């Protein structure tokens, strides 16, 4: 029983290690700065400007 549990725990850890390998291979660790800025941009940004032009029509 214990042997199996240890085996499973190591297997699980190995999966995470492989996941890290995959991430590094696909270049996800190459740029660690830009994504942190990118996520702050509003996709709705252009909508605001459209609203303004609507007001002008009124």
């Amino acid at each position: 029983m214990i042997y199996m549990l240890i085996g499973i725990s190591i297997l699980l850890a190995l999966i995470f290690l492989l996941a890290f390998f995959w991430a590094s291979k696909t270049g996800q660790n190459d740029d660690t700065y830009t994504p942190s800025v990118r996520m702050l941009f509003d996709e709705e940004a252009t909508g605001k400007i459209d609203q303004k032009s609507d007001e002008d029509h009124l």
Partner: protein
Amino acid sequence: MAMSKTKTLTVETHCYHCGEDLPFSPYILADKQFCCLGCQGVYQILSSHNLDNYYAYNDVPGQTQKTQAPRLEYLDEPTIIADLVDYQDNETTVITFYIPAIHCSSCIWLLENLYKINPAIIQSRIDFLKKQVVITFKNKALSLRELAEILSRIGYEPLISLQDVVKKQQHDVSDRQLIRKIAVAGFCFGNTMLLSFPEYFGLSGLEQQFKDFFGWLNLAFCLPVVFYCGRDYFSSAWINLKNGVLNLDFPLALGIAVMFLRSAAEIFSRSGAGFADTLCGLVFFLLVGRWMQKHTYHHLSFERDYRSYFPVAVTLLKENKESPLPLNQLKQGDRILIRSNEIIPADAILLNGTARLDFSFVTGESIPVEKVLGEVVYAGGRQLGGAIELEVIKPVSQSYLTRLWNNETFTADKDRIKTFSGTASKYFSVALLSVAIGSGLFWLFKEDPSKAMASFTAVLIIACPCALALSSPFTLAAVLSIFDKNKFYLKNTAVIEELARIDTFVFDKTGTITNPEAANFSFSGKITAIQKQWISDLARNSGHPLSRELVKWIALPKQFTALDYQEKVGRGISGLIDGQLICLGSTAFLGIEPVPQLPGSTVHVMIADQYLGYFLSSQQWRNGFKDLVLHLGRHAGLHLLSGDQEHDRKSLIPFFPSIQHMHFRQSPQNKLDYIKTLQNKGHKVLMFGDGLNDAGALKQSDLGVAITDNINNFTPGCDAILDGSSFSRIPNFIRQAKDAVRVIHMSFGISLAYNALGLFFAVQGTLSPLIAAVLMPASTITIISFTSIAARLYARKNHLL
């Protein structure tokens, strides 16, 4: 609310796009004020594509657009395109551009929304730290040249040069490999530690059955650590040993090997638990140290040569037709067209037009050189006048300028900086081996062979210089990031140790100790805007450096033409502008009372026989130059190597200890040779330079430092790049470098103390895995925290933090 208020305030005095001061009559569009047409143009493009948010994320995110847009015809040439793109098929093209102007979050936002400007752009991704953008676009609807032109129009001109930095970086995957090794080592370290805990805390009778199982698992985890992660240590130790060098990798490799073999032996023979966790931890920490040392600046290049200064292509004239030609295909006898502000790529004969060439970057000569028809024009000059036609007489690689790079200095490997850990490890390895053999022999003598073996291996294990190997990288990495904050960028950590040893400083003049954007004038007296215009239009006619700087400083477009212009060389100029007689020059020239000596050159102004006051050029030398030479001169030799004429000799005499140390009219080769002579006299030479003409001297010197006012600009190959604004901090940097070496010495002492403690158990043959497992991480953590804290404390003392 408060934010929008401050914003309107900025807008009133500064350009809405780039934030520069507004000129006398700013350009106005939609209540926004701009400093030049370029900035206004960028705003227009952005607002017409609903990209106004560019201005919302940051105030004044743009770059000044005063400089002219480059000509990009060569980007239509298929051979050049093939060289530049990452991928291309019939539909789409992928290209990576290096764009120096990328500097804030607005840049990221705008460049990733390029598709709104032109729908042919499918995707654009920025790598901010590398200042690169990868653009995927439909090549049927948009050509590469059009893409580059779009980027230039919105103020993000890509830098395309012969020496493509982008390509080199893409192929460099060693960083990834190291990180992967760290991941594996960390993974094994964690697991072995967990599996070793039961052994350390003691197993009850019931749990004894797991002992072997844990041992085997531990050994299995050691395999990848030794043979994958630790592979480099073995190969490096072996290569160095073959060359008769004992470096720190030797005791490390020995420690790893012995630890592995003894663990395997103990586990096979069921005589003990082995040192699996210590082994994995050791390799893990070592790799982390190596990673720390590998600090890279993605946006800087220390290996640039003339190829990144020259353009990619040149305009070829053939049967009266202009066509772009890749520079490497340029042959002897080709006729080329050089437009205003372009660089002459090869030695050539002037066939048509007037050449006014700025050689300041190549020779250090600050005054433009005029050439007449039939004269030979050397490569590297920048044409200031109109377009000229030239016939190439030598290929690019053989020209007067580029020949410098054929010098042996450039082919020799510069990896010759002696580091402290390199020197110390020699003695350390010898001492370690003799202690190990000595204790082994002692126990053999006492006829206790098992103890002899135990003590011999234990010494090699416990004294494995992990903490020792980490003290240098962690100290130097901390100092590197401190320098980095102060805009002093070093190529690698060994440069810091070299900096601490320097005893001779050599300065280039033009661009290095003089500020290229030079004079900052201040006017004493009263002057109106129109009078400034008159002065500028008069001074425009003169070739004197002060006049040229004055025109540059006033920065007004030409309005009037001077009549009856007269120039008395070295004294002053006069002329009729807009009907007014204007005189500029010395007090003697104007016939007025001399003023007391002022710190800098003066230009006195007289308009319509009325004395108005004088311009004082406040900054002839770089900020803090005087204090710097005073400070450095106390302990070190100072020399000046200038490619310029002697016109500044007099004003430089007070700064340099002896007139024999000042040399003018030096060719690039002269500079290189001069450094060599100094080195032959046993000096450690640091060279400050900025231009291509210093490239040889920078390479030859023990430490070449390139000074630049904009780190995105071209800098010649060097060991370190210093931002001009930090010029006055050089003494602080040197003190910090010396302190860093002191910190390394101290941490060496600490780790030796830990080693001695471990050896106390080891030589007695009583080293248990538990002691090793405690000592190794404890010493490592002590070293890491000590070095980073000490480096920062010293930095505070040296006013660098």
